[in-house]
């Protein structure tokens, strides 16, 4: 674990962020946000590393990670697809949207696709009930008034974007 820390550029990036904090006290949540941004998720070794760097017990880090639903300990795809199953979306067929997304990606739960590009998360209310059913791809790309048929096209657009790179 120690050696990985030294060589893995992701750890180096996280360390740089932590080292530049004016005060390490009370910064756990901010650091966890950053770590999740860098690693995509918060596995044991990342939590352990953060505990060491911030000089706090690793059990405390784990407690905070499990408290907030935003934090995840499982890997996510590069594009996290949040399908809304809040009341309005559910009534308007949100479950069918979710099922179609999974079918299209070939996943059964919240595990990432084999190429690491996508993962699906079913969430409660994204705050856009008037456009139900809705889903969010990544942090910004919002899609409303969905039908299952629109799904393959949307997903394909991200695959194309990635292929061009």
């Amino acid at each position, binding site marked *: 674990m120690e050696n990985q820390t030294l060589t893995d550029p992701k750890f180096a990036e996280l360390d740089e962020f932590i080292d530049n904090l004016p005060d390490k006290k009370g910064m756990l949540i901010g650091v966890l946000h950053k770590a999740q941004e860098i690693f995509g998720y918060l596995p*044991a070794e990342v939590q352990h590393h953060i505990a060491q760097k911030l000089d706090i*017990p690793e*059990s405390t880090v*784990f407690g905070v990670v*499990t408290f907030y639903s935003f934090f995840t300990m499982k890997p996510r795809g590069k594009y996290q697809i949040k399908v809304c199953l809040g009341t309005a979306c559910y009534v308007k067929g949100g479950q069918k949207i979710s099922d179609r997304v999974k079918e299209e990606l070939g996943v059964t739960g919240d595990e990432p696709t084999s190429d690491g590009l996508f993962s699906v998360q079913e969430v409660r209310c994204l705050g856009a009930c008037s456009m139900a059913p809705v889903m969010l791809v990544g942090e910004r790309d919002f899609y409303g008034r969905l039908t299952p048929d629109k799904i393959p096209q949307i997903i394909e657009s991200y695959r194309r974007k990635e292929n061009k790179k």
Partner: protein
Amino acid sequence: MINEKTLSIEIDGKNYNIPEGKNLLEFLLENGFDIPHLCYHPALKSIGACRMCVVEVEGSKNLVTSCTAEIREGMKIKTNSPLVKESREVNLSLLLKDHPDDCMTCDQNGNCALQDLAYEYFPSGKPLFGYMKEKRYEIDDSSEFIVRDLNKCIKCQLCVRVCDEVEGMSIYSMVQRGHESYPSTFMNLPLAQTNCVSCGECASICPTGAIVEKPSIGKARWNKVEKVKTTCLYCGVGCQIDVYFDPKKNDIVRIQGSSENREVNDAIATCVKGKFGYSFVNHPDRLKSPLLKKNGEFVPVTWDEALDYTAKKLIEIKEKYGPDSIGFLSSARCTNEENYLLQKIARAIIGTNNIDHCARLCHASTVAGLSMTFGAGAMTNPIGDIEFAEVIIATGTNTTENHPVYGSRVKRAVRNGSHLIVIDPRKIELVDYAELWLRNLPGTDLAILNGLLNVIIHENLIDEEFISKRTEGFEEVKKAVEKYTPSYVSKISGVDEKKLVKAAEMYAKAKTASILYAMGITQHVSGTKNVIAIANLAMATGKIGRPGSGVNPLRGQSNVQGAGDVGCLPNLFPGNQPVSKESVIEKFKMAWNVEYLSDKNGLTSVEMFDAIMNGKIKALFVMGENPVMSHPDESHVRKALEKLEFMVDMDIFPNDTTKYAHVILAASSGFEKDGTFTNTERRVQRVRKVLNPVGNSKPDWMILKDLMNRLGYNAHYESPKEIMEEISKVSPIYAGISYDRIEHKGIQWPCRSIDDEGTAILHQNSFSTENGLGKFIPVEYTEPPEIPDEEYPFYLSTGRILYQYHTGTMTRRVKEINDLRPKVEIEINPEDAKDLGIKDGDIVRVSSRRGSIEGPAKITERSQKGLVFIPFHYAESPANMLTLAAIDPIAKIPTFKVSAVKIEKVKVEDRV
């Protein structure tokens, strides 16, 4: 903090004055109100989690948890209104809804706070929402000591808080949230895979059966056990413990930290040995009858036969060779009363000062060094005082393993803002808490200590007023440390110059600073000089005699302070009174009603073995020691013991030393007798009889009393209490100690009269020297007598580990402890291991000029390059085969911390 001011409040229509800052729940409980509570404990900060202690406060919108209530003048409180009652019923029902109703097989049955409340609030057996229907959590029984069944958890968070606030380990945290939350480990790891140190405090504090002690399960129901408060038998911290025992089986069921005496062990704290190290008591190996060696074999005999024979032999040898042909080794594990009797036998009956005990092997240099400088060889400040130190220097003390409960206090002090400096060749746990770590080469402590003083003088950080008013001899020390410049010291010790300067500045500039030390300072040929250098440092900076400032040697055994206090030293009568002083001799002749007492200093324990070899000592009386294992150069000790004409050994187990005895006297353990121990902070505390003596064993004091009468001295002590009465008469520092006065709380000596409250901090206004001034003494660094060379290229250091205790006579007979650490681990630095081709767990042979031992290697950064560390607990890999019997010329303490060894990997075909 509680202050003098009181507030007037009304509780259930009656007026009360409550001290400002007082916890309301505590006040209510103390005044007889029946307030239910599940998450409150006197050792911890209150958090108001269980909401059972709610009260109604007039004018307040909501009910208030009394454990966290802010008390205001004129507050009107109702503790049992219909609203309060209803709220408690609902809260309790919500807890019970998430709790199984399986009290029948629960280990906590009969001592469960939840069960008691359910019984009180729902005698119908029907709480509002029923009980848990489906269990949600797997039971974690991975630990040797602790079983966690979180289905029974009520989320009071006591386990999380005690592990954090008292033990400083923070193994647990509340995870998940809301209704789903539960206390768990990092990544929900099984406890055995965490850094848990098995102090067992979470099991002691858990109000339900969610965390219980594994060794106790199925042993006895709570209503079948009785409780006795006593003092822990292991290290010198002197934790107060509640021992629960089954009188029918004459066996201990469990031990918990006592909630009284928070100044010693935080009203709850224990370590793994104190909490779980008790099952040796009824181990089949216990000596259950006196034994006499007949035709080379030990045969059980009656007490009369054993004691008559012993008396006859002792008298014979005294008459044939003179009184100084007999040596006595007493025990830091026996009570003050027993040690007093043994030295009385040596002095008043036999007529020799050849009496010593194992402090010779640990803190003899402290007693000598601090007596020469301060006039009293003991810890200057109380245990709890460490939390007032702005800067703490811990040097040569692996506190968290050897004095675990004190170690937790050091960690807490650091978390609360104290700055810790560790000076130690090994990367011990405290290094993780240190702001500065000076990793020196073994045996170079004196150079470093002189070097720190050099910087302090050079930078003019000395306390001139303190030096001129309270001390003498500073100028000579000033001259002597001139050459110990940072660059000179750095060359000797391997410590970076800048670190030396910073450490000196931190210590000298702090308002309060305390130095902690133990065997890493004392167990050297320069042990006494090391201690003097520490005293010089404290006096030069005025860091002595105040709260948070002092010199604090941590004593290793339960009564190592007391054994010396009551005279088991070859140069001192009880109460540190010199045997060479005529007035003292006269006083003791009167007190003991004898005509002759020797005024000649006796031999120290290490010297006794040489005296046996050259024929001066013919008989040895050993009480509760195991010199074969604990003394340096084991083969030398064995040869000496073989040479004795007569040897008596009084012990609870057969061990490597008892083999050489002619008579073995079967003693009772510390759980089977009354008496007192004096802990590391000079606090005289009660030891109480829990069990009846096992087998036909007898408490040591009874055996000694019977022997005294057989030796022709009229001794008629009815109980240890009467022996303490005698001690207090002859020993001025114990003059005010009596069993009545220490019934609830121990008193710290000096305690000079029955009105004296005792002395928490020594040397406050003057030192204990004859003229009251502290004595600066110049001390010069010299190289250790044996250092690595081509043939023996490694430093060897010996010591203890958390789980085992000393020669292992007790802890190696506690199944769970020994299962966890069954074998020696020879700690080797990773680079050295690589060079030697040694992998973790490989069997290695470590050899010195005196012998060689084998054991599995542990590859660890704890050892610096060039150093191996071997604990001395394991008879099959005895570290003291290797150590050097070179001794400090002043205190005669052996140099356990430095010798030279070589290491080889043992090839399978080479194994014998």
